[in-house]
């Protein structure tokens, strides 16, 4: 894509994100918050995918952060705002311990273990009734952060998105880009070029999980309560995944495009046919995998520069 055009689009989107609270009412802001949340999750999922590791554990680390945040407020007396970075730290620490054990696995084995982890977290929180509130969930006595102000919650979600975006762009510009692409392409050539594969994977897993925990904290503070079924919902794994696949993987732009399209479309579909949007999601994933393996962004780049085929 044309570099200048990309810059103009990015600036316009950024400006729109900043002026939106002044122009839009509560409902569009709520939709925007949702889109930004899923966009941020899609970006973090893609960041780990750049190393070739497919995680199905987004909901697990997201939900863990959500519970860390709300329990931090209720059990440890933290102020609501402080519980959000605490949630990030908690999920990052959990990812460090888990990653140390499971990042030696590859391919399907890694994916399945991450899927199982999310379920294990949910069950543990389900059963620690006295501490976590169990299946009925737990309510923050002070209520929603910022007294539930629509623009306050919007800014909070925007901060969460900015953290994910910043990290993703940093990954693209720094040595992470080299290391992760090398690991994805060819582990033998990577390690024999001096890449410490395990450490790069661990760092990536910890950073992306920390951001997922942060988003979980933002989510739970925006509603003032958590139940195991709401914060560990498979939606938090499947929707970001579908968005990144639709928009295009292995970069920052794809997940943004996918999240805007699918996020707005699903909001509309929900009104047209409740629960029908999930069927549409499934169909989109199938079509994208069959016909556009690099997503919409990959397709656009291919059409702009057909000669320079990007080999996979």
């Amino acid at each position: 894509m044309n570099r200048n055009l990309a810059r103009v689009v990015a600036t316009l989107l950024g400006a729109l994100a900043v002026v939106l609270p002044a122009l839009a009412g509560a409902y569009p802001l709520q939709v925007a918050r949702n889109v930004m949340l899923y966009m941020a999750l899609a970006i973090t999922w893609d960041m780990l995918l750049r190393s070739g590791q497919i995680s199905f554990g987004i909901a697990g680390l997201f939900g863990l952060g959500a519970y860390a945040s709300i329990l931090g407020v209720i059990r440890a007396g933290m102020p609501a705002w402080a519980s959000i970075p605490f949630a990030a730290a908690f999920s990052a620490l959990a990812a460090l311990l888990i990653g140390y054990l499971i990042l030696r696995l590859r391919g399907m084995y890694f994916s399945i273990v991450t899927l199982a982890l999310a379920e294990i977290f949910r069950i543990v929180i389900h059963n620690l009734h006295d501490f976590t509130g169990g299946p009925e969930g737990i309510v923050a006595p002070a209520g929603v952060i910022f007294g539930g102000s629509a623009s306050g919650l919007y800014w909070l979600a925007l901060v969460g998105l900015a953290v994910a975006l910043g990290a993703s762009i940093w990954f693209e510009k720094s040595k992470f880009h080299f290391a992760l692409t090398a690991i994805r392409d060819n582990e033998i050539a990577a390690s024999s070029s001096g890449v410490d594969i395990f450490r790069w994977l661990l760092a990536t897993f910890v950073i992306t999980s920390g951001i997922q925990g942060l988003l979980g904290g933002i989510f739970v503070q925006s509603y003032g309560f958590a139940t195991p079924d709401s914060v560990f919902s498979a939606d938090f794994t499947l929707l970001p995944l579908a968005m990144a696949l639709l928009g295009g993987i292995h970069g920052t732009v794809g997940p943004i495009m996918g999240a805007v399209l699918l996020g707005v479309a699903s909001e509309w579909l929900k009104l047209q046919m409740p629960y029908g949007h999930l069927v549409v999601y499934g169909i989109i994933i199938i079509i994208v995998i069959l016909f556009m393996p690099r997503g919409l962004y990959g397709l656009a780049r291919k059409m702009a520069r057909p000669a320079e085929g990007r080999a996979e």
Partner: protein
Amino acid sequence: MILDIQKLETGYGKLKVLLGVDLKVGKESVGLFGPNGAGKTTLINTIMGMQRPWSGSVKFDGQEIGGKATHLVARSGIALVPQERELFPGMSVADNLELGAAWVPRAAGIEKRQLDMVVQLFPILKERLKQYVGTMSGGQQRMVAIGRALMANPLLLILDEPSLGLQPSIVAEVFERLALLKKEVAILVTEQNVRESLKAIDRGYVLENGAVALEDSAAGLAKNPHVVSAYLGI
């Protein structure tokens, strides 16, 4: 001695593949020959830390490296051109080359000089720096792979079957370039194509059934009746 391997034994599960190999590489170019299954790739994997030695020692530049992690072996100054799939197809030629130097302290600060050396050795890469390597021919990809290894400014360059899957004219070209390189860097190269590689090496070992069966100069090997009948096919 740059590489000094003594009484090296290793294997997979209960199967012993290397039965006490002794091999030395000084400032020279050394060939490693032998039939499929003799243990050539196992030996290289053990040097590179992808395979643990059961016993014996692997000394590189005076330091024991047997059992060290692969990335640490690479950073200490051994560059490997692995067998076949040796590149990062999702990256451009320039990125592949840059990556070769990115993690190796010996290459820090002299990337420009190394790049000049690589494009001088393989001029075709100069005009293709922006191309994705997945779209290049097999011979060009092999050149990028060798170039990437050289970017690390290695003390020892190891090539595992550099002629594999290449057409004869390209094989000859690759060995021509390796012959030029041996002034700059110590080389250990495994090959099935003994005839071509004899032009590029000073000395060679023949590995059979996990042990060194023969060790001689290139000229000596070319005249050896066993080598002639088993590997040169005359």
